[in-house]
């Protein structure tokens, strides 16, 4: 065998040389030479971090390819997408992969956050990486938001119109940032060029820096979170080659194959050409923003932004609140935590549709309080009611359920996540013309 073949295909036979192979290899050096055997159980991590990283890599590869064929001008953006879909060899496949893996990345990054929270993966000095992780999730959402302006179809135009209008409700710099992004009185050439530069240069640079730091910090923090081992017992440690690499390779191949097949069968959607005079009716955002859009139907934009903002801030601050280290690595903290989570999920599934229907059909806060400005009647009051309701749920678990801090936090977190899923479902399936409530069938 020539030297490069040896380097590529040589599989070390004994543990010592396997460990040296990891230590000497740049890519494999992401991993330690040995990992604890329980950390390899795939029902612990579900491989969500690794899958997200692979999808991010796929985004960069397909994204660079698309840049060669895409044209960021109002006159030609839409036709360049049509050309990619119909004329360019494998164009539809590459765009399909880019589109669907971006959608999947939202799901896996979100699930990754849920997994890390549920197993207390932010504990024992992992608070910094918890924050970086939340930052990465927000970055992925920004990627998706800036990306879907680029095809210049109806979804693009109206999503960016609404998004930049939302920004201008933010006090202080909101209007300035919105004006910068729009670069004109309405979404046009200026906005398209700005979003393109942000999508293909600014965000990828941030992504690469933050992802590198995220991985490095996992190693620095002593590997992924694990349950405390029982007293006076030793955890078996296995070599990374082949035990971890084999699982990762299998997961990667299965994921890539499924994605390619899916992208071949289902091309990425492209709506009609953007038309500033006629939004589609109903005009809906991409599904992952429908939870926020549903919230916007019920309260003042500032309140509709502050409510998820407050929830996200609370989630980011959880390492300061839930510090108990005994339950690290245990799903839901304990069995009681599991019951708390199920109760919270049932509560959210029941409560959210009731609240949506009551607000839609009977409750008109501004009409009830005509003397108050809209910002208070339809903003501050529903915001305080919502936050008060969330606090009530937390204390319900603490007092009636006798849950400890961690278990009650699991309950509240589950309520928030299931509420978001419920709101998203209402928005996607139960909203018809003029965004009125309808049955989906």
């Amino acid at each position: 065998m020539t030297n490069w073949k040896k380097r590529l295909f040589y599989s070390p036979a004994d543990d010592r040389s396997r460990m040296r192979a990891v230590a000497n290899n740049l890519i494999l050096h992401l991993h330690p030479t040995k990992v604890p055997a329980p950390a390899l159980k795939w029902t612990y991590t579900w491989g969500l971090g690794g899958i997200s990283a692979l999808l991010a890599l796929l985004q960069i590869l397909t994204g660079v390819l698309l840049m060669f064929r895409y044209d960021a001008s109002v006159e030609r953006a839409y036709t360049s997408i049509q050309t990619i879909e119909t004329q360019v060899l494998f164009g539809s496949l590459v765009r399909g992969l880019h589109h669907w893996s971006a959608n999947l990345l939202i799901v896996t990054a979100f699930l990754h956050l849920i997994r890390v929270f549920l197993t207390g993966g932010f504990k024992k000095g992992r608070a910094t990486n918890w924050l970086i992780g939340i930052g990465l999730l927000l970055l992925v959402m920004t990627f998706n938001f800036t990306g879907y302006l680029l095809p210049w179809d109806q979804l693009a135009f109206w999503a960016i119109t609404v998004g930049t209008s939302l920004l201008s409700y933010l006090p202080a710099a909101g209007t300035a940032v919105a004006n910068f992004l729009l670069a004109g009185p309405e979404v046009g050439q200026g906005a398209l060029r700005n979003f393109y530069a942000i999508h293909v240069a600014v965000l990828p640079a941030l992504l690469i820096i933050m992802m590198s730091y995220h991985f490095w910090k996992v190693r620095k923090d002593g590997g992924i979170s694990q349950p405390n081992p029982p007293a006076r017992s030793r955890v078996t440690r296995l070599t990374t080659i082949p035990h971890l690499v084999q699982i990762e390779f299998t997961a990667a191949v299965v994921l890539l194959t499924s994605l390619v097949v899916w992208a071949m069968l289902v091309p990425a959607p492209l709506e009609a050409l953007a038309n500033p005079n006629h939004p589609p009716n109903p005009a809906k955002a991409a599904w992952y923003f429908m939870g926020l859009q549903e919230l916007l139907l019920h309260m003042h934009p500032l309140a509709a932004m502050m409510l998820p903002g407050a929830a996200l801030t609370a989630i980011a601050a959880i390492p300061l609140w839930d510090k108990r280290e005994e339950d690290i690595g245990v799903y839901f903290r304990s069995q009681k935590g599991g019951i708390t989570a199920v109760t919270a999920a049932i509560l959210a599934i029941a409560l959210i549709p009731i609240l949506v229907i009551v607000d839609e059909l009977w409750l008109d806060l501004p009409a009830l309080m005509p003397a108050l400005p809209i910002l208070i009647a339809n903003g501050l009051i529903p915001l305080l009611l919502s936050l008060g309701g969330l606090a009530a749920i937390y204390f319900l678990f603490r007092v009636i359920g006798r849950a400890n801090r961690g278990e009650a936090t699991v309950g509240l977190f589950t309520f928030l996540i299931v509420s978001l899923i419920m709101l998203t479902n209402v928005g996607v399936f139960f909203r018809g013309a003029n965004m009125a409530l309808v049955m989906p069938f």
Partner: protein
Amino acid sequence: MSQQNNTLPMNRRDFLKMGATALSLLAALEVGGASLMFMQPRRLDGVFGGVVTAGPADSFPPGSVTHFPDGRFYLIRAADGGFLAVYQRCTHLGCTVNWEADQNRFFCPCHASAFDMLGSVANPPAPRALDLFPVSITDGSVVVNTADIQTRDEFTPAQLAYA
């Protein structure tokens, strides 16, 4: 030589260090400022066509709503014959509202806001009535100035322009 140094407020090394720091800060400020100015949005005013002549006043019957897509406005003629030009942009989050004559309402397809025929809010979440463009009637024809967007809380009769 050391005697000489003691009489000075600082030695040469410290002076150069301080100077280098000051110059670096100045350079950072310049680069930051230049980048900000480079990124400055170039907003164009009145691109909807500035002043739009909608047509002879007689061609709009009282109680009618006419869409002028190029001017981005709806021309409303109230039942008493007064004219009102409303910006088509929803005051909530900027989608174009649709006029639905059978329900006598403007509807926003993005967040379910509704406005009555004169542009006042009929259903939240819109925070205020549809914005206005000034209307004048000269020589029997309706002229709308789309460069001047005027906000209002709700409809008042003073907003109507008469022939």
